[in-house]
């Protein structure tokens, strides 16, 4: 699969530099998907920019149209998603890629959150429950503890979307105060990672463990 290099001060992924003139997509192994109005946490999107590079960002429309299957797709701050976009992501998974879906709906009211919940269930068979305010009761340790692909602690984002691992093929990879907030599972030939506590703001704020985690994920795919 090839290894992805971590450069000093940032994350270097194949194709994260300037695209070639002929066909920018052919070189792109990593894509950060901008859901536009359906991105519920644009700050998180900007966090991924700072690490992966703006040239890796593409709109949902362009992503659907080109039907390229990059090896690594990140969907920051997801709110809701249309069927075409979801299908394109599922195609990436079928082609053996890794897709990271990060929930951005932690601050949403219950009616809006219901749409987010249904979207995740319908397209990715992910079961999430209502967002929790991690700080509502005497929280003292402000970190999500990740166990895969490396053990790191990354600052939580206050509101987290808990996720349930229902099958043996689903592995909880992140806990906030004992609550599962990150999971990975096989989908067809690929790997789906769900993040219920947004990583993007930590990337933007310079959390070095957040950067290390993302770099390690990209190196094991």
């Amino acid at each position, binding site marked *: 699969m090839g290894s992805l290099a971590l450069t000093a001060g940032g994350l270097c992924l194949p194709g994260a530099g300037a695209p070639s003139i002929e066909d920018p997509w052919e070189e792109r192994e990593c894509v950060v998907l901008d859901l536009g109005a359906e991105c*519920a*946490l*644009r*700050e998180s999107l900007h966090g991924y920019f700072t690490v992966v590079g703006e040239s890796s960002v593409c709109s949902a429309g362009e992503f659907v149209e080109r039907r390229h299957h990059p090896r690594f797709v990140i969907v920051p701050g997801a709110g809701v998603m249309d069927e075409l976009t979801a299908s394109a992501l599922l195609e990436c998974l079928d082609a053996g890629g890794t897709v990271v879906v990060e929930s951005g709906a932690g*601050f949403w009211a219950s009616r809006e959150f219901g749409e987010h919940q249904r979207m995740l269930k319908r397209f990715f068979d992910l079961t999430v429950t209502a967002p929790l305010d*991690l*700080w509502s009761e005497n*929280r003292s340790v*402000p970190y999500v503890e990740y166990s895969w692909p490396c053990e790191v602690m990354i*600052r939580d*984002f*206050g*509101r987290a979307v808990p996720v349930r691992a229902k099958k043996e093929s689903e592995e909880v990879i992140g806990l906030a105060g004992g609550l599962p907030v990150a999971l990975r599972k096989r989908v067809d030939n690929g790997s789906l990672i769900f993040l219920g506590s947004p990583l993007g*703001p930590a990337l*933007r*704020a*310079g*959390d070095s463990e957040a950067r290390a985690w993302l770099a390690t994920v990209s190196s094991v795919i």
Partner: protein
Amino acid sequence: MKKSIGDNMIPKGWTFEQGLELVKKAGYEGIELWLGDVPWFQMNTSDAQVTELRRKVENAGLLVSNVSTGLHWETPLSARDPKVRAQAIRIVEREIETAQLLGCDAVLVVAGLVTEEVPYNEVYLRCLEAMHQLAPAAEKTHVKIGCENCNSEHRFLISPREFWTFLNEVNSPYVGLHFDVGNIHDTGFAEQWIEIHGARITRVHLKDPLKKRGRCGDQPVYTNLFLGDNNWPAIRAALKKVGYDGWLIAEMEARYKFALDQQFYDTAVAMQRLIDGKL
């Protein structure tokens, strides 16, 4: 330099007009209006009502020195929730709008609130973004945004150099420092802040800290002017050194328990002694 005092010091139960009469009699030239803190000036106060406030102020022989607000303590510009941040931006926009109606050219903003939950780096970036978003409106209306140094109260931009760096990154002549000489407590010296920030100071809040006390339950850490630990001759000299000739506004956290109106008189006299250099 001219003397002003906050309308949030007007004793509870008094009308705005009674408060204005006291402010004028006590010897102030202006009054600071606190958006969201007083019954006559709220987010839903209409433009016509705000214009009426100005008329009352001017009829009393006073001017509005600036618009301030404490609403950002509950609705911070640095909140993680995008909807809360949008509300916070709207508050500043309303401050700017009402400042124009009131005939003044400065507003106070508490930029950012660091908590155990919301860390410094996130707060810094969001405040920078907020100021970049608001600066054009400030420039267009010629109303300056003064970010107040709340120091250990909001645990953000605690040192003068951090604040300097922040304002450099905002990079707008219409975003500066609303300097509070008392909020520094024992983390530094007011006169040094003045030397560093100079022309970026939009307004000056006055209070006197008890530097050795620190926050202790409900005990105030501030006291009346000249009773605390500020070096007032040095502060006056620093203001003169940098050429500050604007409004000095009394923000007295420690309030008289009795004869509430007397504090207005006493504070005005102290401020005039400071202005005249009779220390």
